[in-house]
């Protein structure tokens, strides 16, 4: 039978079927589901992340590996009762009001998701009150805002202001990004962080979550 170590390799190879088969077999044999996740599946995606950083792997391959990992995690989760499922933190993310650009935001979401975050994606053209409602509902550690238009950047500040008004500002970190956005703008509106691309967005979120 394939081992937990093999599971890591199957995640790296993005072989969904083998990940599912092996996870199911290991569970059936009585293996601890948390151990399967922490010692089999997660090391696989971590290795994929490393290889991506070194430039030996491309984003679509990383996405396929992430899907393979998730397929395994989903099976393992079914067997976990009450215990804490590992999770890097919850992030509520969206493209701000008036802005329909979502490709960059979706990438950031997918990469965060692959890195173990619980991502609540509100979509595009999201008004401040919707962010507030989502923060109340999901209690995230991070709120992520994306804007690609100079004209919609002020909507980022509106979200921050609304968080203050609702007395939620000190419960979440605000991370912003998008082509016209800069560290200087983040400082100006009092965001907690800015990331120029999706990979750095994940690093930033891991650091401040």
């Amino acid at each position, binding site marked *: 039978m394939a081992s937990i170590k093999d599971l890591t390799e199957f995640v790296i190879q993005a072989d969904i079927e083998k990940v599912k088969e092996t996870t199911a077999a290991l569970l059936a044999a009585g293996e601890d589901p948390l151990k399967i996740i922490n010692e089999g599946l997660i090391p696989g995606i971590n290795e994929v992340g490393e290889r991506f950083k070194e430039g030996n792997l*491309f*984003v*679509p391959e990383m996405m396929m590996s992430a899907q393979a990992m998730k397929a395994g995690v989903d099976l393992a989760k079914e067997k976990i009762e009450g215990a804490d499922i590992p999770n890097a933190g919850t992030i509520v993310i969206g493209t701000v009001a008036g802005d329909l650009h*979502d*490709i960059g935001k*979706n990438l950031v979401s997918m990469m965060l998701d692959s890195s173990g975050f619980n991502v609540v994606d509100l979509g595009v053209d999201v008004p401040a009150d919707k962010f507030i409602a989502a923060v109340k509902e999901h209690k995230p550690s991070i709120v992520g805002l994306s804007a690609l238009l*100079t*004209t919609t950047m002020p909507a980022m500040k509106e979200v921050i202001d609304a968080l203050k008004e609702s007395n939620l500002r000190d419960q979440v970190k605000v991370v912003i990004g998008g*082509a016209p956005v800069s560290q200087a703008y983040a400082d100006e509106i009092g965001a907690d962080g800015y990331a120029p691309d999706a990979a750095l967005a994940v690093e930033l979120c891991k650091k401040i979550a």
Partner: protein
Amino acid sequence: MEYASKHGDGIAFRTLTLQQLKDIHSASCRILDEVGVIVHHDEAADLLKKGGAYIDSKGRTHIPEALIKRALHSAPSRITLYNRLGEPVIWMEKSNVHFGAGSDTLVYLDPFTGERRDWTTEEVATAIRVVDALPQLDFVMSMGLLSDVDKRMINRIQYALMLKNSVKPQVVIAEDAPTVADITEMAAAAVGGREKLKNMPHFVLYCEPTSPLQLPFESVDKLLYAAENKIPVNFACGAVEGASTPVTVAGAVAQANAEALCGLVLHQLKNPGAPFLYGFGGSPLDMRTMVACYAVPEVLLLQGCVCDLSRFYSLPSWGYAGCSSSKDFDEQAIAEATMFTVMGALQGCNLMHDVFYIESGRTGSLELLVLMDEVISRARHILKGVNTTPEYLAVDAVKRVGPGGNYLGDAHTAKHFREKWQPTLSDFSTYSSWEAAGAKSMRERIRERLRSIMQEHKPVPLAPEVEEKIDAVIKQAKDRLGI
């Protein structure tokens, strides 16, 4: 070769066979029929429904092929654009090519210092004057985002700047239909009234679906406004291949074509016969850096498909040229922008924009613009083709000169040498005379040209009462918006 481009004397360029055109059309029809689109606009959804579209339980609108056929039948196959003086200057049809600048770059790359900074109103005005002065550029766009005005006024003020600093027709970006209405008001003031503008269009409106397969409210609102007012308009998706469309060229074209056709259907339902400009573009995602890249080979192929499809559909075509992914005005920028320009010319794209874009549309380079003016002139010369009439085959001249002779002293040379292409920037002098003249690199010559245009070029001014009307439109908009 039926739908290949046809230029002077036999020059033609084809990307797709007739069978491939039919396959793409059929794939796009399947997408509209089987997958459907999401329409975020009640009037539009209603128009489509009444026209015969089916709205499913998930709210997706499915468009039958019959609607597409009808729209293709009623849409005009050609559009003429007029300059501010009322002269026809752009003829969008067949394989005619026209070039223009781009809109809304974030960063101004100072051509003299290399500094990257936000655009000011003055710099945008100057950049538009440069486009006005360059003979190979046929239309203007807004160049850069104004960092020194209220954000809600950017599009309107950009338009006023275009009217004041150039006579050339424009392609216009506007955030919503009320902005288009103000722009139309300003244009009407400049050309002599609403009715004249309607029949002698001075600007094209640039509208976009949001891929995949979504029709946002503002875009559709603008599209319908344009149809009603006979403002030439496109519905051109900016595909980010691998993210918003399939990663393959054919897949991207099939989906983007479906989106453009869907825009056309809606537009023709609103006002059959109103002018529509067909086309779209792409900037594939680099799968390592996640950057949307301009001017890569796949995008040039995509544009070849757009041009062949436009002739297959008998619609005027819209596309790109003279732009680059490079961060600087450097060798990469010149290689990419030149390739795009030459390919676009051969493909016979009717209206090509973004000449001067670097960093995939985030930065604008006036140096690239000036260089492309000469590249376009070279490309246009190629499009003239090879004249093979007896006078040009020159057998008589060969007889006169004979073996071992020299054509320099022959009348045929004297008669025809002026037809040869002439540079405006390139240097054809000897090394020693080039050195004696200061050994100036192309880059230095470009800057000199820019400097002299910036100092000397005066666009044909607007009449004072027209300026007043334009300023009044701006003022009213500010009042309305409470600025």
